[in-house]
């Protein structure tokens, strides 16, 4: 029993980070019909902000605060220069943001080089509970991720901003005729989505190797989570993330990473075949 605990905790922390990444993707997709292929790179840049912050001798917390600010600002630039010209044209957004992802990756290679970097753990201890020990930072990571996910849900479900955002998702034209500035809502939702990716990158930086290719490793399962869970209600990401993250993480430990990937794809294909709208349904009926 006691050897199960660390495995389940590992899977849970992976799921939470995956949900955090997918949540940003989904806000941007659900709201603007933008499939942001550069989302993984924004996540990566968040991790590099942390690398840089540590290189400059700044405390860990400074990196955690800086990452979403820097990446969110980058999101604002991307929205202004690129995304706002291609709203609701999914195919064009794939091409444009894919190009952007390549450019961002090369930019990081130019600045930091192609090799991987590591970030020191801010807290080095571990917790011992009976027979098993677990790093404290991973527990903190889980708690912070869960709080961020909860906070994002609260923002979109309980606040006035969320009411406007959901209205713009459901009926953008009608929302505009009621005086809602839809462009502004698009912009700030995009910035929130990118800032979340940056923050997620900074949070996981101490437990993974930070390199220019790391974005893809989260982008693909992030998209799979949305497909599996359904792109309608925000809660779809939770279900999709749990299925995709849970299966891939647990099987990778018990069998092999390859078997895990194969199983995740088979599950995704089956769900898409049998329930094309995803487990919790597609974009909510208007």
């Amino acid at each position, binding site marked *: 029993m006691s050897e199960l605990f660390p495995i389940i905790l590992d899977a849970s922390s992976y799921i939470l980070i995956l949900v955090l990444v997918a949540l940003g993707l989904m806000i941007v997709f659900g709201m603007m019909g933008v499939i942001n292929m550069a989302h993984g790179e924004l996540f990566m840049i968040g991790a590099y902000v942390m690398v840089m912050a540590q290189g400059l001798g700044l405390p860990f917390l400074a990196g955690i605060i800086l990452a979403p600010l820097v990446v969110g600002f980058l999101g604002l630039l991307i929205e202004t220069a690129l995304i706002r010209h291609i709203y609701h044209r999914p195919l064009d957004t794939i091409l444009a943001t894919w190009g952007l992802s390549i450019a961002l990756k090369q930019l990081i290679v130019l600045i930091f080089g192609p090799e991987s970097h590591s970030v020191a753990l801010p807290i080095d201890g571990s917790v011992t509970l009976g027979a098993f020990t677990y790093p404290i930072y991973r527990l903190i990571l889980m708690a912070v991720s869960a709080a961020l996910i909860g906070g994002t849900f609260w923002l979109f479900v309980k606040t006035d901003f969320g*009411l*406007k955002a959901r*209205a713009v998702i459901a*009926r953008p034209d009608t929302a505009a*005729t*009621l*005086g*809602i500035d839809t462009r502004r809502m698009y912009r700030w939702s995009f910035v929130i989505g990118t800032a979340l990716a940056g923050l997620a990158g900074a949070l996981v930086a101490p437990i993974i190797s930070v390199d220019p290719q790391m974005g893809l490793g989260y982008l693909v399962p992030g998209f799979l989570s949305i497909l599996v869970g359904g792109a309608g209600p925000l809660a779809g990401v939770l279900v999709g993330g749990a299925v995709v993250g849970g299966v891939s993480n647990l099987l990778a430990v018990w069998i092999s990473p390859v078997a895990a990937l194969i199983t995740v794809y088979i599950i995704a294909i089956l769900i898409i075949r049998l329930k094309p709208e995803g487990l919790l349904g597609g974009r909510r*009926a208007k």
Partner: protein
Amino acid sequence: MLEIRNLSSGYRDALVLRDFDCRIAGGRVTALMGRNGMGKTTLLKTIMGLIAARTGTISFDGEMLQNLSTHLISRAGIGYVPQGREIFDGFTVFENLRLSLLGHEGGEPLPIAQIYDWFPILKERAEQKAGTFSGGQQQILAIARALIGRPKMLLLDEPTEGIQPSIVHEIGLQLGKIARDTGLGILIVEQNVDMVRTLADHVLFMENGSIRESCDIEALRRDDSLLHRYLSV
């Protein structure tokens, strides 16, 4: 006063309105009638900025609207109730109203209490999901939602479509009362002759993208040959 000059507008290759001119007086109810496909909905959508005007001007109490985005047109005092109502099904009645209140923050939106006073059913059902409403109740909600922005001119696109006659009459009477009490101007696109007779002061007939004829409601009550000509009733 809503004044439209030389307006051209339409979809992709199809121009629906060509050099369209008309004036809609404030503070009274103008009905716009005509068969399907004559450009009535296109006109309302162009006024709201949902379809871009290609040429021409739309001025409202001296303010030029044709290059403004939709939310600014709404804030300039034009309310809009679209065809099919387009309420937010998944939101409660209160959230639908609240949304309009948020859209007009910074202006002087109507308190929701006033809306509840005019339409008590919305107060009774404030926490109910709007999607569970009947067509008539949804229409009342859509009108109430537009009124929250305290518009000076309300555009209504076929408000009686698919609604049972008893509620149509009720909506007509209530809207007429609100217009008289508040000085609200209304431009209503309507095929339902009873609704037009209940509510309108003035009637415009539209054909092939332009206004062909106009008359006041008394003239229409005396002689309905215009209805036959432009609506084939």
